[in-house]
């Protein structure tokens, strides 16, 4: 529980052309000053009056991220009764996220769920009935935090973090035991030794940070796979969805020419669309690879959109697909309603018991039905959601970044030939930051480690 400057995306789940990021706290305006460039280059934003709007750019070390409008509200005349900055940008999850990252890099902390409201309440801005809602929010967070730390971090990442933490606490315990019992435990010249270890840890954290960057977009949306026979209209569906939503499109490096992956925001729901190669029996080796990939995507998907060409009869390939998707969350699109349909919804229903929607990608018909169906599934919890997980990951990333910075400070202390006791200050900060990732607090870890690892005392 810290009383510091917080930031969050305020339009996380909303279907809008713009994105809003909110910063609240003592340093809100100072942070803005570091990342904002006014259009006319003259005004210093830090000196701007309360309740004024400014037009300019958000920059990350001279690289322009987006054109924005900035609203400044100074304490106590704001929602939280603290200094608040709101940044309106061009929306799209990538840009919003990038801006948030820059804000965090410059000293803000990612807000906990409900934290703005909590501050508003604690600072006497909102009343009792609203406060009740805050408690619910925090409760939700309790469950959520438990869930996310368990589910999300079961894997390699948490093991990695545990390992790094263990190494850190061991080093601190050694330093501390030597400081505590200097006549028993010698530590002179230890810096050189430690430097190598710290550099290793720094590069390990660097790797973690990198992996979280490249992997995030793909991992964080609902993984939605579009399948169907060749020419059923998969790609045109994708184009329709992308075109209509005007979402940010990314080309993800590493995807093959056979599967294209795109990220869109549909009614506030993040979808990662994978357009697969058409599935059919083939002897062509290259195509075979594509087909196998498509099958793999199917296995790992959260949602499958199966596009059926209504103008041709179901064949062996369709039955194969239907067989593969039996146990999955599926929406079947009966495409090409603008043409002469050989297959009807009723006919198809007899073969496969899934939601079926008739559409025409060409005439843009039925797409709204698809959208509301996906939205329904999402909000009813039929498909797993992504938004919170996304936030959590940014939180983790921020914590890892903190730890990384602390270790850089340790490195500096060593290079500056500071005495050993200075190392443990930032080592402990790194240990604590990493603890936040896996949900562990400091407690008596250090004292226990000292006593169990090092023999001391008279």
């Amino acid at each position, binding site marked *: 529980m810290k*009383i510091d400057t917080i930031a969050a995306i305020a339009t996380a789940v909303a279907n809008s052309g713009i994105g809003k990021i909110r910063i609240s706290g003592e340093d809100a305006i100072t942070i803005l000053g570091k990342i904002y460039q006014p259009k006319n280059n003259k005004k210093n934003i830090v000196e701007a009056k309360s309740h004024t709007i400014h037009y300019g750019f958000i920059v990350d070390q001279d690289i322009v991220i987006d054109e924005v409008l900035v609203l400044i509200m100074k304490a106590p005349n704001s929602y939280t009764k603290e200094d608040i900055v709101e940044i309106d940008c061009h929306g799209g999850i990538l840009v919003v996220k990038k801006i948030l990252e820059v804000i965090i890099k410059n000293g803000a902390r990612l807000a906990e769920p409900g934290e703005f409201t909590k501050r508003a*309440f*604690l600072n006497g801005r909102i009343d009792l009935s609203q406060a009740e809602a805050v408690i619910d929010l925090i*409760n939700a967070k309790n469950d959520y935090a438990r869930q996310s730390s368990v589910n999300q971090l079961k894997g390699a990442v948490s093991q990695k973090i545990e390992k790094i933490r263990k190494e850190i606490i061991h080093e601190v315990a050694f330093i501390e035991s030597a400081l505590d019992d200097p006549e*028993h435990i010698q530590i002179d010249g230890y810096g050189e030794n430690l430097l190598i270890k710290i550099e290793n840890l720094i590069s390990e954290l660097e790797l973690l940070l990198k992996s979280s960057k490249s992997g995030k977009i793909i991992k964080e949306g609902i993984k939605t796979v579009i399948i169907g026979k060749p020419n059923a209209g998969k790609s045109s569906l994708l184009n329709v969805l992308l075109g209509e939503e005007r979402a940010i499109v990314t080309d993800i490096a590493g995807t093959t020419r056979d599967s294209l992956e795109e990220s869109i925001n549909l009614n506030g729901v993040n979808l990662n669309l994978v357009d697969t190669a058409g599935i059919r029996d083939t002897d062509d080796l290259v195509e075979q690879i594509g087909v196998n990939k498509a099958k793999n995507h199917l296995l790992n998907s959260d949602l499958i959109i199966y596009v059926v060409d209504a103008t041709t009869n179901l064949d062996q390939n369709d039955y194969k697909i239907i067989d593969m998707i039996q146990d999955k969350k599926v929406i079947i699109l009966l495409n090409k309603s603008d043409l002469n349909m050989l297959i009807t919804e009723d006919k198809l229903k007899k073969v496969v018991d899934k939601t079926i929607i008739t559409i025409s990608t060409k005439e843009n018909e039925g797409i709204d039905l698809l959208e509301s169906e996906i939205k329904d599934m999402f909000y009813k919890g039929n498909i797993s959601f992504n938004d919170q997980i996304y936030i959590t990951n940014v939180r983790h990333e921020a914590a890892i970044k903190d730890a990384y910075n602390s270790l850089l400070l340790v490195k500096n202390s060593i290079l500056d*030939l500071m005495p050993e*006791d200075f190392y443990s200050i930032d080592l*402990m900060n790194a240990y604590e930051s990493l603890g936040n990732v896996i949900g562990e607090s400091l407690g008596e870890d250090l004292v226990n480690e000292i006593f169990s690892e090092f023999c001391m005392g008279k």
Partner: protein
Amino acid sequence: MSTIMENYDICIVGAGHAGCEAALASARLGLETILFTVNIESIALMPCNPNIGGTSKGHLVREIDALGGEMGKNIDKTFIQSKMLNKSKGPAVHSLRAQADKAEYTYKMREVLENTDHLTIRQAEVTELICENNIIKGVKTFSGAQYNCQAVILCTGTYLKARCLYGDVVNHTGPNGLQAANYLSESLKSLGVEIFRFKTGTPARIDRRSIDFSKMQEQFGDDRVVPFSFETDINSVQIKQESCWLTYTNEKTHEVIKKNLDRSPLYSGMIEGTGPRYCPSIEDKVVKFSDKDRHQVFIEPEGKYTNEMYVGGMSSSLPEDVQYAMYRSVPGLENANIVRNAYAIEYDCINPRQLNPTLEFKNISGLFSAGQFNGSSGYEEAAAQGLVAGINAAMKILDREYLILDRSESYIGVLIDDLVTKENREPYRMMTSRAEYRLLLRQDNADLRLTKLGYKVGLISKERYKRLCLKEEMIKAEISRLEKESIGANKEVQELLEKNSSTTLKTGTSLAELIRRPELNYETIKSIDKNRKELPLDVIEQVNINIKYDGYIKRQMKQVDQFKKLEKKLIPENICYDEIRGLRIEAQQKLNLFKPVSIGQASRISGVSPADISVLLVYMEQLKVNRRSLNGAL
């Protein structure tokens, strides 16, 4: 039959290091104080090691002194060797440690006590607390005499139901064969106080004449001794010092120990108490760290007028014959004669969770406690608590503001907060690593941190207070001068930099920037600092440290700001955790047990999560709003 009945303001039970500080504080604040001890000869006794201070403990002594306590002054009068530990490390971990002349230490302390106004010393065993409706009314002694009072401070050390053990020998005595106190525990239990049983130990004392020092390394004190007390004249402590000696255990020692482990009451299960991990007996060390082929042994004099030598590092509860074999296996101790056996001691103490940070019992008004009775260990830890308990008992009676030190201003604050907030399962010892803001809590600045508080309490004289204010001003002025004063890249400057293998200047810079360089300091740049005035050494020390470590210090101060905000959010005393929606059950139980004073304290209780703290904050605000609207309605 008539019995004695007397009236006092404050009764203090026990005259060890905690009891002495408590009694002096209370009497010096003008309250009629009576100090009970089972044996008048054992005032300020050092029954274990002959040191005062050491890592982090040295900090405690300085803080005691800065608040107006006695320990620092007393050791300055009676030390026989002194060393600043960790001198090659950062200023935060420099720690002063002195070897005491034990006998002289107790005499000098007794002299101070006996000559303090409002203080009565009485040799008697307190056997019963008189308590009505959970308010303390007085104490009764073994003879039946009754002493009425408004506050009692329990400083019983290791005497409650004490048992000393080695091998299969059990003595029902306190340390050194002194009379144990066997009745008070029952009185406490009947008042609902939760009792722990802890254990500690001490090594043998050996006759100096039977030691071959030629097989040991001589350990000297510092050439220039720094006193503990900020008030001691530095010239008065430049005395001829005694030496200590270093030797080592070996394979043979370990073999003797391992072969006889089954005869140790520790391993046979005869000892029930929990011992400290930081102060393991030699048998513990040999078992737990079996990869080590030797352990250090320090041979330290117990005083100038005795041949008894303390065998540091080899406390034990093995039988007498094994002790002989074990000690005599150590180089230099081949012919050692034991004067006193090593032994383990078991005693009753309390679960300190029952205390407020004022060291008053949460459930018994007017009952305070300090020292080993609170589950700590160490003379310095005891004295620190004694001082705080003495001050707060007085503040209560005088109806003045309590002295509660927090973690960001003192080691004493860390010590007491740890005791009353954390699950304590072994005798607690101070360590610098327990202080999260240790860069700010240095032994060199204890006066700057605490003397103003001591003055406010009334234990610091006006003169001392004024001296401190002056010191503060000089430090501030000199730092600001050095930050402002710029220096050009002239020849003299460049030469000085080169001489100190420091990068030469390209443009001008401030003097402070130069001091910040690792290879330079306040002294080394003296010749290029033309406007420098003569300043006292302690001022220079502060200026140098504050400029040099400015970046680190500022970062810690920022953390402290955040910490303080939560410490200031006080939890209402009558809060009912059971009715707070959203609190997890574990948190509810812990909060009920510990009854934290502030949100900050609550957040340090293990089992209370940050989410629970949020719930608590919101609930407290609700209470406030409710109260406001209620007041409006009335």
